[in-house]
């Protein structure tokens, strides 16, 4: 997961205000993270793609109006937009709140050379993602922002308007939950 530090982010954002190529760099930097986060929260790949497209087109539109306020970061701003789009989707499609179906999960386009390994990794990823859906909405969101969006706890706190310690607490509890379920299912395997 390619990440840059806060200073680099500021420089890039500043340059992108008058240089389209810098905006392209921002896109390439954040696309995988935004996609992973959105796909991690959606049931169908088509919906994830629609939302990610909406997010980036919206960002392109609103970018000029973005300004740093306080400790706020561009990353948090971006993820907040993504999160709002996901929320809007669920407001419009409440039926989509069904449990994840394995064959509907977003695909992983792995670069792994071995087909066997790819299949195994795909299955394991599917399984984990289905476990994540069993968490409470807040914890599911935090896990997704953390592991798929690659956000720091401070950034998650900013996106969700929570205290950073609350985020840390939720994260640890969510992992404990997952660990339990993950382990018990592994133990039951032949």
């Amino acid at each position, binding site marked *: 997961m390619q990440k840059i530090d806060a200073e680099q982010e500021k420089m890039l954002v500043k340059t992108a205000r008058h240089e389209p190529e810098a905006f392209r760099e921002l896109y390439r930097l954040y696309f995988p993270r935004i*996609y992973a986060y959105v796909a991690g929260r959606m049931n169908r790949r088509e919906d994830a793609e629609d939302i990610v497209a909406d997010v980036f087109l919206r960002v392109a539109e609103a970018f000029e109006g973005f300004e740093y306020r306080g400790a706020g970061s561009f990353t948090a701003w971006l993820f907040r937009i993504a999160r709002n789009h996901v929320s809007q989707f669920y407001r419009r499609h409440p039926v989509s709140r069904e449990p994840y179906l394995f064959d509907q999960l977003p695909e992983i386009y792995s670069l792994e050379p071995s087909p066997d390994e790819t299949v195994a990794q795909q299955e394991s990823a599917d399984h984990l993602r289905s476990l994540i859906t069993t968490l*409470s909405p807040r914890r599911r969101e935090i896990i997704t922002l953390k592991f798929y969006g690659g956000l720091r706890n401070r950034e998650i706190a900013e996106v969700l308007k929570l205290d950073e*310690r609350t985020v840390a607490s939720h994260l640890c509890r969510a992992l404990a939950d997952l660990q339990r379920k993950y382990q018990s299912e592994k133990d039951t395997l032949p």
Partner: protein
Amino acid sequence: MTQNGAHDDNLLEQIERLLADGKPTGDPLLDDLARSAPEASPEFRQQLENQVMAKVSHQYEIKRRTEQMNTGGNVIASQFPERISPQKRRPIRLPFTLVAAALATIIGGIVLFMGATPPSNPSFMALQTDSTETPISAPLTTIPATPIAEILRSLVVRSGPGVDYPEITTLEAPEVVEIRGISEDRQWYQVVLPDGSQGWIVTAGTYINFIGNRDALQVVPAPTYAPVNVTTMTPSPTYVPVNMTTTPPVMSTATVTPTPSPVIFTDIPPTMMHPSAVTDMPTVPPPGMQPMPDSLSLWALSTSITSLKMQPVVIALQDIPGGTYMTADMLAVTYWPENILPDQSLTSVEPMVGIAVNEDIERWQPVLLENISVQTGELTYLTELYLSAEGKVVVAVSLERINDTDYAVRAGEVVDLAVTLMYVDMGDGFQEIVPNNEAVQVNSHTIEDVEVLQMIENADGEPGDTIVLAVTAGDALVLNWLIETGIEITLLPSE
């Protein structure tokens, strides 16, 4: 791993390292989690990148042109096109290209003459690169003799210089039309349409790029069409231009004079409201004329003289009795002059939906933050609450209605709302308790998996008396019923 509120610092550090450098931690769960992030198909990523960059280029272009219009008015380009998307590179851009070429030649000459090295400013470098992308083959020339307008975004063409004239057609970017003249108030251009007919378009730089000499334009009198709609827009001290969707940066009008004195809004005439918001508005459009249309036309209606900074404000479209849970059709966003905007006014309908008003609000009155049940002092906060509810209804419940519990509730927790009640069968005939029929105690987790959005604090920072919950619309009904009937509610941690 954790106790209530505590967290494992080692674990957190491990995760940060894993996400920062991708090195496996040895913990199967963490490693698998990091590996399970969904990836997009390369085709989709590339396709979207092209789409986004086309949009970005367009945005830069609009920005540049707007700046150009603001700084000079006329065609003289203050800088080169930074990056022009392929679809923008069309022959119709020739006049602009010629001027850019002229300026490029002059600046190039100056740089050479002074023997200076080009600056290392990345944007300047980009300009240099781009100058090779934009075909410059014409000799130095002057401003075109016949002014033209390059359409920047979808624009309605009317049969006369005013929004009350019928629409003829719509022009889309990047169409270019020849300008024949200008209206007496200099707010409309008479143009020649692609089919050879004539029409009028607004002069706003947001919509068109004017190329030519504006001062030389001939003033063309308006056609002798007597508009009807305009009579309904009678000047009034309480004029409230209405726009349901788009925020015009500044609304101004030739007929309206802002009043500095305090204004009472109880008598806003319905004719001042957006037609879609006023069902009983007696509008009689003339034959062939569209009713008061879109935001663009309203914006265009506002011609110059006095500029009023307008701000969005949420108003009630009907009388809303205290205690009513607001729905979207009860409210609308309108625009009021900034100087008379009430304190604590709200700007967006969406966050208000599903929230109860704590006192009567009369029709046409603004809905204020103090009118709604969740009082936090900050609208943004409320919006956040709403957004974080993800399609659920935000309900604020007084803690007086919540039974004592050892469970210390905090924002972000998921809880169940349980009720305990006794019931007895009633006789069919007289609605009396059937003799010898014992009461049955019912314990029920009536509403499950409710997210606690916030515990409202008192001014002194101590926990206050209100808890804000996100529930489904159905559960909100149940919760309201529980509150109204006085049945005690117990909060329990969700299973």
